[in-house]
């Protein structure tokens, strides 16, 4: 997979360099302006294939959810937070900067690839119960969102709407930064959980909040960010992305008129599924009761791990509250990518305002208001209790601790951890809804008692949601390659006579060809 990506990039860039005087960015930029459309498109497509595989975009994503979970968690964090971004960098650098934009279909292609990646990635993430695999698929989803932004920027730029292109590109780049911050945090927390329990399977986790409070709190920060809700940093970048798509409709062309609503719907569906996915990851993984003895014995990770997670969480919070601090840098980056961009797309420190469009949002004020609101409600409840003591209805101090109550168990005795919802059961309704897309495999084995086949001894039930693209696209490809390899092996039997024969016939054949053609 990686080799394939590299080959595609190298082919594209070699083709490019062959047309330029040297391989510096300046000369490539100059050459890019003079290339014929066909060559430009070939270069772009080759580079897009290569960098999309680096970014883990569908259908070249298959390596990502396999490679990222297997690495040690800090390496997974590095891979998911930093490495995939290079794919986006490559596409922006070559497409915008070196080739100087291009026809609209390039960017529509990027947008479609992004949209498919976003929805497919988050659907798979919603289904899986392996925590690190879930985070890996979520990387595909987030890079898909970034590619939607990049594609939209290209579409706008090719239509001459440069202010809008700047906004979309800023949104995409901000999402890259945000994703890097929260994915680092999430992978490090997953590593902390793995360290404490040895488990990655959400179905066996649970109840970690009491035993690993710091990890739980920090994972919550990351999960909030990843589900793109207010107080999280990804909310700001998704908001910018939606704004750029909403304002993109008046940009001329039926293609935009069809693409933009579809893109908004994709972003919305992705956001909705991301919420469900991270409620599952956090709720099932950290809340409720432990579902295995390993989770029961978990202890908090050492200080060094907590500090690492804490730093990543700080970055998340800072980006969520004052996203304006990275805006100048993003504006410069967007300006370097597209020289037609004028002023920065987003202004304002406390309240973000779009340049050229009516639209504003104040993450700082929303966050502050929510926190103050929560504190006020809690304090109000306290006060209500205290006032009651003054009236003298309760003689002792108003309950310092709340009374412990039994859970509702339908009167059938205490609930066990086996009765809890697991990650698999949590995702079951969604799996049913998206049945046609996911094609889950179900296996029911019923073993009967020997005496009678009406009496059941045991029932075994297995369900798997395989990666459909992997199965439909890669397995046939691999089988094909394998078949050819097998066929090829018959040529090499190990007999020296045969090899000499091959040499003789090859030379003779070449001579005949030369004799005929010359």
């Amino acid at each position, binding site marked *: 997979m990686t080799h394939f990506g590299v080959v595609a990039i190298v082919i594209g860039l070699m083709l490019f360099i062959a047309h330029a005087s040297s391989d510096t960015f300046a000369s490539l930029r100059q050459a890019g302006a003079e290339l014929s459309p066909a060559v430009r498109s070939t270069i772009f497509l080759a580079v897009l294939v290569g960098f999309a595989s680096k970014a883990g975009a569908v259908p070249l994503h298959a390596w990502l959810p396999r490679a990222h979970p297997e690495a040690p968690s800090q390496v997974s964090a590095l891979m998911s937070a930093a490495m995939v971004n290079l794919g986006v960098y490559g596409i922006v650098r070559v497409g915008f900067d070196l080739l100087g934009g291009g026809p609209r279909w390039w960017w529509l292609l990027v947008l479609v690839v992004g949209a498919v990646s976003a929805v497919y990635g988050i659907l798979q993430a919603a289904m899986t119960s392996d925590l690190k695999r879930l985070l890996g698929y979520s990387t595909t989803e987030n890079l898909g969102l970034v590619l939607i932004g990049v594609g939209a920027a290209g579409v706008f730029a090719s239509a001459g709407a440069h202010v809008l292109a700047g906004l979309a590109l800023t949104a995409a780049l901000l999402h890259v930064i945000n994703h890097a911050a929260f994915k680092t945090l999430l992978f490090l927390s997953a590593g902390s959980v793995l360290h404490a329990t040895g488990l990655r399977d959400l179905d066996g986790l649970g109840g970690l909040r009491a035993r690993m409070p710091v990890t739980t709190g920090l994972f919550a920060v990351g999960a909030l960010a990843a589900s793109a809700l*207010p107080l999280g940093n990804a909310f700001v970048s998704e*908001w910018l992305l939606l704004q750029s798509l909403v304002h993109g409709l008046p940009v001329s062309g039926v293609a935009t008129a069809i693409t933009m609503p579809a893109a908004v719907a994709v972003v919305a569906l992705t956001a909705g*599924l991301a919420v469900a996915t991270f409620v599952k990851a956090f709720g099932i993984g950290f809340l409720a*009761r432990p579902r295995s003895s390993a989770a029961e014995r978990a202890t908090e990770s050492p200080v060094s791990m907590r500090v690492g997670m804490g730093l990543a969480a700080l970055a998340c919070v800072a980006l969520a509250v004052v996203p304006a601090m990275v805006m100048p840098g993003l504006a410069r980056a967007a300006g370097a990518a597209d020289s037609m961009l004028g002023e920065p797309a987003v202004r304002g420190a406390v309240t973000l305002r779009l340049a050229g469009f009516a639209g504003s949002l104040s993450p700082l004020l*929303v966050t502050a208001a929510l926190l103050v609101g929560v504190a006020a409600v809690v304090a109000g409840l306290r006060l209500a209790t205290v006032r009651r003591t003054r009236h003298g209805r309760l003689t002792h101090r108003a309950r310092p601790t709340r009374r412990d109550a039994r859970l509702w168990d339908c009167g059938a005795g205490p609930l066990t951890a086996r009765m809890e919802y697991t990650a698999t059961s949590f995702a079951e309704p969604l799996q049913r809804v998206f049945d046609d897309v996911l094609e889950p495999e179900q296996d029911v084995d019923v073993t009967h008692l020997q005496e009678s086949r009406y009496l059941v001894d045991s029932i075994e039930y297995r369900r798997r949601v395989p990666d459909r693209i992997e199965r439909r696209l890669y397995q046939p490809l691999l089988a094909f390659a394998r078949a050819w390899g097998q066929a090829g092996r018959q040529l090499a039997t190990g007999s020296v006579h045969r090899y000499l024969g091959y040499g003789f016939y090859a030379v003779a054949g070449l001579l005949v060809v030369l004799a005929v053609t010359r």
Partner: protein
Amino acid sequence: MTGVTGALGAVLQVAVIAVGSPYLVGAMRQVRARLEGRAGPDVAQPWRDLRKLLRKESLTPHGTSEVFRLTPAVLVASTVLVAAVAPFLTTASPLDPVADLFAVVALLTLGTVALALAGIDTGTAFGGMGASREMTITALVEPTLLVAIFALSVPVGSTNLGAIVNSTLHDPARVVSPVSLLAAVALAVAIIAETGRLPVDNPSTHLELTMVHEAMVLEYAGPDLALVEWASAMRLTVFLGLLANLFAPWGIATGSGLAGLVLAVIVFAVKVGLLGLLLAVGEVFLAKLRLFRVPELLAGSFLLALLAVAASFFLA
């Protein structure tokens, strides 16, 4: 002067919604009861229930954590924040630039997420079941909501609520355009799903297998339950108020002047009351859909929203 009345309007919005929403719920129950041939409880009964619950002792279900304890506060705070920033009584609120329609939807989703986490936190089968179902519905409602917002904001050129309301005020003919009508129907279905009303969820069910919202809040008792109930009444009011003001904003205070504000309060109460009445009447005649039929309903509303966007482009 505008700033002062604007700020006053924002405060008044919160107060009206906070005080009025239990009455709305009471009125809706009264309507349903009358239509079903019962006398039904008084309109003020939800307030009495809240008062009674607030006086009770706070309980902690065994094994629950801070997530469970903080959820009612998060729910109330996020709803109050929406009540403060959205234009319900005045468009001159100084808080208007703070959050647009996307942010409002996201804030309300935040409340839903908190509730789902609290449901999981109890560790009971019901809590997990309710959370799982609620999240499924939320994930599917989101596209409809956002695309409908898209359709509404295209003619205006902004997603800021104040801008949308103001532009409808200046151009009343737009309300009967296909864009508006399609988006209104799509939003109405999405709102029914989000607020957990029939036919998506039955707010008065306690039959274990059909519960969605009720299953998540099953373990709440006393003051916590009071907050949850109050917040869900406010959410209903906020959603109905948004629907009313996005499509029929007349009566809302636009400038300075206390008379305008007073009028706005009355008109708002009438509009939301009417919508509540409609919803209650509809609920009498509707049965709850099977859970796995709900996606079909939502897909239908999504299609309407998409048609609205198409109309906004091709008919503009």
